[in-house]
């Protein structure tokens, strides 16, 4: 329990807790907590569909009288009453990940998923010669990150690379096994497929499994998102051309840092772009990139 007398307690509510990405965010947040001498708690619902569970979490968090709240909203609309309550009680809110779509947050540390996915599309186009069939596996068809990464990729293809056809987009719930079976069926259905984009870690692992199980390594250009041991191995071995990484540790660190600054009355930018980067075999070991990757 956080709010023991003199310690500053900051509640961090993310979109998940059991995936690698969120643990990297948590690690960043905890690092900031140590650096700035505050206590934090970090929690999130089991899947990104569970909007109501996140609402309950925010509610319980506010009841713990935190000094500040860091929030990666699954759906801003649904959280609005609680955001208003935080505002009334003078609890500063800092958005992170894809942010909170409202004026209330004093600042937001986020990745521009639309732009990041567009970069993945450009890289894909470059690697397959700006023409041919590609497919996409996304983790979720209704969550913000799922929609943004899908739309960012699709829109970029449509506007900038008209000769590339997106033949199928399917959703694997971030489940490695389901994503594997999905990707296999897609490859099966489209023998001429030239590229495959997986929009989160679970999705891309599924694509990699499918490509290797169907003996198509090298025939299909695979582009991923985020990091993780398996994906990094695949990039090093050449099975995967490269991936987009966000800065999960930075996201976690910066949002807690922003919360502390807000509490100290410092001025904050509305947006803290935590950035995203393309990485592949050539730069995976660079210090700037390696710092962003989690295993």
């Amino acid at each position, binding site marked *: *329990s956080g709010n023991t007398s003199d310690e500053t307690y900051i509640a961090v509510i993310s979109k998940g807790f059991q995936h690698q990405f969120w643990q990297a965010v948590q690690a960043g947040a905890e690092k900031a907590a140590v650096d700035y001498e505050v206590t934090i708690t970090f*929690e999130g619902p089991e899947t990104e*569909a*569970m*909007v109501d569970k996140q609402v309950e979490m925010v509610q319980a968090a506010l*009841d713990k009288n935190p000094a500040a709240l860091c929030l990666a909203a699954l759906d801003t609309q649904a959280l609005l009453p609680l955001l208003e309550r935080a505002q009334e009680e003078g609890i500063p809110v800092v958005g992170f990940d894809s942010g909170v779509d409202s004026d209330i947050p004093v600042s937001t540390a986020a990745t521009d998923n639309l732009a990041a996915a567009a970069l993945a599309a450009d890289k894909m186009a470059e690697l397959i010669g700006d023409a041919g069939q590609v497919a996409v596996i996304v983790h979720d*068809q*209704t969550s913000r990150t799922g929609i943004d990464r899908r739309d960012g990729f699709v829109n970029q293809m449509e506007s900038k690379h008209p000769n590339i056809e997106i033949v199928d987009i399917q959703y694997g719930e971030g489940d490695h096994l389901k994503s594997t079976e999905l990707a296999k069926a897609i490859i099966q259905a489209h023998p001429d497929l030239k590229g495959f984009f997986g929009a989160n870690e679970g999705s891309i692992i599924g694509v990699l499994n499918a490509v290797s199980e169907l003996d198509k390594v090298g025939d299909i250009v695979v582009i991923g998102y985020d990091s993780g041991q398996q994906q990094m191995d695949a990039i090093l071995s050449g099975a995967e051309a490269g991936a987009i990484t966000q800065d999960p540790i930075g996201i976690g660190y910066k949002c807690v840092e922003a919360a502390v600054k807000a509490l100290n009355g410092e001025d904050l930018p509305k947006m803290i772009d935590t950035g995203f980067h393309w990485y592949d075999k050539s730069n995976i070991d660079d210090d700037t990139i390696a710092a962003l990757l989690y295993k």
Partner: protein
Amino acid sequence: METILKSKNSLFRSDATQKLMAFAGLIALFVVFSIASPNFFQFSNIIGILLATAVNGILALGATFVIITAGIDLSVGTVMTLSAVMTGVFITVMGLPVYVGVLGGLTTGALAGFINGSIISRMKIPPFVATLGMLYIAKGLSLVISGLKPVYFNDTPSFKEIAMGSILGKIIPGFEVPNAVLILFGAAFIAHLILNKTVLGRYTYAIGSNEEATRLSGVNVTFWKTAIYALAGSFAGLGGVMIAARLNSAQPALGAGYELDAIAAVVIGGTSLSGGEGTILGTIIGAFIISVLTNGLRILSVPQEWQIVVTGTIVILAVYADILRRRQ
């Protein structure tokens, strides 16, 4: 010696005492959490717990009827979602008045329940299978109808008030109990009346106790079973309206897995899965036990993975306590 044993027995056996003991379990949880954290027993957190119980409690009400008939309804979660989406479509897309939208949501739930009931009672498909099918169908249809996007109720602020406004707060200033909580208790009261004072309730118990005997007594079991599932569906529909009002949006991907929470509430509340017995009060207590547990563990900042382990253990222990009470 024997007389002592006997009087103890009869004390344990009385129905009222039994409920009292389930209630005692709930109180015990309250006390433990209140001692463990100063943030637990506070007005806003208690309201939070009540509010968190609203949706699961309402789903569990419907599930109680079905389980008393010795059936099961796995589709409550996704039917809830489908009803929420339909409410959204009626109000936001078609622009119908809010009350029509709410009725539409309830009707959607009732219709899904009606289909469940018809499949079960006419096609003789086991409830587990029929409602498993409905679980998938409602899930798919929610996505199809919503076009995979949440439906927002921004243009009709009054819709949100259904759950989040506070009629009580207007009457007693400062006592801001959200309407959702009133609706939960209202729905529970109505469910209690239906179960105990109407023919439908009587047949619910009769079918669960001995379906064949009920049929041989000249009761149209097909009709009444369909009605019971339709009623359960209506509660899922109400749950859909409530969750949509709570979230000010209909979230099409929600709802899978919610059936297990609803069934757990019913079972913790002392309703037997083999049918014939069960009470609404028990179910409400069961639903609160789950919410208090979840909330308390969160307030204590217990790591989430351990919260899951504890919840599983409590489900088993709560039912075991109930079994021990009965055996006495």
